[in-house]
């Protein structure tokens, strides 16, 4: 009698229906693998959460904010699912997308005029439940209510959805259950998980630059003339917003 009771007590912590505070939250539907073992291990569901909004906040452009999504996008597109790119800040470049193994046929690009249209298009894309992934660039300001609407739409879909926001948005509340800040660390990409279901993350997941494909091959170039970005150039507005800190040279 006594023996069996202690046996039961020691089994309790292992029981699958008991959740412990130090665990990640469990999800009903497994996530879609990010393609990085170290990152999967830190995400509830073991990957990008399906039917939920994920916020991506890169500190600068061009640090790998799309490249680190490409393994998951490639896997989805190879299984025939469409990927909607809503209001991307620049022109997505077909040969590079193909090099990232994303099937070009599954690419749907939506250009919008203004944040309202962007959010509308994103909501339609999620509600239609017709895409494997939805990527949204809503611009600098999105209010909580609009994000809430998107999250509601995402909950009714089988889609993984990424919303790209400025790093300053990390200070404000958001209904997105997963929020990531992207930084660089010695040329590698550091993914800081600001919010996830379950216990909070303490340290960033560092993805080595060589893991982020496709990456231009480095040949150790050395040369005397080095250009700098000209902030006074009259035509300089064409490209949009580069990180301000890269403008001083």
């Amino acid at each position, binding site marked *: 009698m006594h023996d069996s009771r202690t046996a039961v007590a020691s089994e309790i912590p292992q029981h699958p229906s008991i959740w412990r505070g130090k665990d990640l939250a469990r999800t009903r539907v497994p996530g879609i693998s990010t393609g990085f073992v170290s990152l999967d291990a830190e995400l509830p569901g073991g990957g990008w959460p399906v039917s939920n909004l994920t916020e991506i906040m890169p500190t600068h452009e061009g640090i790998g904010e799309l490249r680190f999504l490409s393994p998951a996008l490639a896997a989805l597109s190879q299984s025939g699912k469409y990927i909607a790119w809503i209001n991307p800040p620049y022109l997505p*470049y077909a040969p590079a997308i193909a090099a990232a193994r994303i099937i070009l046929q599954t690419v749907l690009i939506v250009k919008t005029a203004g944040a309202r249209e962007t959010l509308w298009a994103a909501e339609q*894309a999620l509600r239609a439940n017709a895409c494997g992934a939805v990527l949204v660039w809503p611009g600098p300001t999105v209010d909580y209510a609009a994000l809430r609407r998107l999250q509601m739409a995402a909950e009714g879909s089988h889609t993984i959805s990424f919303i790209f926001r400025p790093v300053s948005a990390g200070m404000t509340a958001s209904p997105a259950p997963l929020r990531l800040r992207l930084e660089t660390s010695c040329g590698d990409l550091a993914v800081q998980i600001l919010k996830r279901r379950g216990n909070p993350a303490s340290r960033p997941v560092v993805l080595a630059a060589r893991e982020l494909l496709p990456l231009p091959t480095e040949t150790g170039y050395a040369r005397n003339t080095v250009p700098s970005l000209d902030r006074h150039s009259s035509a300089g507005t064409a490209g949009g917003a580069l990180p301000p800190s890269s403008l001083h040279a």
Partner: protein
Amino acid sequence: MQENAALALLPDLVIKSRDPSAETEAMFGLAAWASQFTPATALDLPSTLVLDVTASLKLFGKPEEIVRRLRTGLRELGFRSAWAVAPTASAACWFARMSQQFLIVDREILMQKISALPLGILKSAADLMRDFASLGLETIGDIQSLPRAGVSRRFGQELLAEIDRGTGQRPDPRTFFKPPAVFLAEIELPAEATQAEALLFASRRLLLQLEGFLIARSSGIERFTLKLLHRTSSSEVHVGMLSPSRDVEHFSRLLRERLGTSTLKEPVRALAIVADSVRPLRTDSGDLFIDESISIGNWKSLVDQLRSRLGEKSVHGLSAHSEHRPELASIPTDPGAIQLQLALEGRPLWMLEVPRPIKPVDQYPGTADRIQLVSGPERIESGWWDGRDFIRDYFVARTPDQSLLWIYQERPVASRGQKGSWYLQGIFS
């Protein structure tokens, strides 16, 4: 009643003149719509539609079912109707015109009902009504009881021929209606409309008519045009779809998005819908291992919906071209179109729409707060044949923030490759 007499009784009366040509046009539209029930549809002008449903009974089951569908359909289209089903076309027309909504299959009952019909229903009796009255003849039965030879001598052969066509003793051939190749339907609004909602309501009737037209041809359309007729001018709203469709709900949704984004400059007097791109409708055969969570049909209607609000050009796919000049290697295309996976390693995912000039500075690389060239140069020299030729040396550069950029130095063709200005063209996001 005289016009002034009516006005004396009701001073607020609005008098509208009857438009027979519009009525005929409406009948033609209804015939095209009704062709979805049987290809053997004929018009008996001014106001009767004859459908030979013998061959359609297998599909619809009972004649009652066809009648029910016809009547609900006509009501949705905004028409009131009386109907009758009979073994002969003429008899069915007579009963329907008398609003005797019979469903007769039995020939003996048909004979009884025909004899009870008043003579006024016969077309050939129009000039003979006075003679009939003086002889005390009122019903078709009265004529039938008289000797045939005498009747044809006195009233002409056509009278008996018409009755015989009704009873089935004489063949009753009809010319079947051929639906036109292009769909065009017009509707005049009861009052001038300024709201998109009112237009949507009215256009739904036209869309229902369009659906019938398409079912009859087992086709779909890829685009249609809504024409708005104002007082003095007219305007058009174009609606396009990714693949042929004939779903009224889908049409209405797309039209709603289109009307929602455009503003009406003038009140609308009348509407017309034109559809000329009639295509055979492919029914998607179900895939055995289809992923149920995401459907292709949803995707197509999503594209249509986005396009109808944002414009066709704002929603597109991408195709890669085998072309050395970066600007020409990535081209917008129709969403979902089959593409070659022309991959190019070492190219950025983001391209600037227009390369952005950057200022060259003589600096030694390696200093932490300067832009460094990581790889390059990669010479791209192409396009001498189309006048858009250039010579450029491309480099991958890293900013102090660790952003990777794709930049180039121009070597103007005219100055034989002398070093020129620097530009930023891509971002390795």
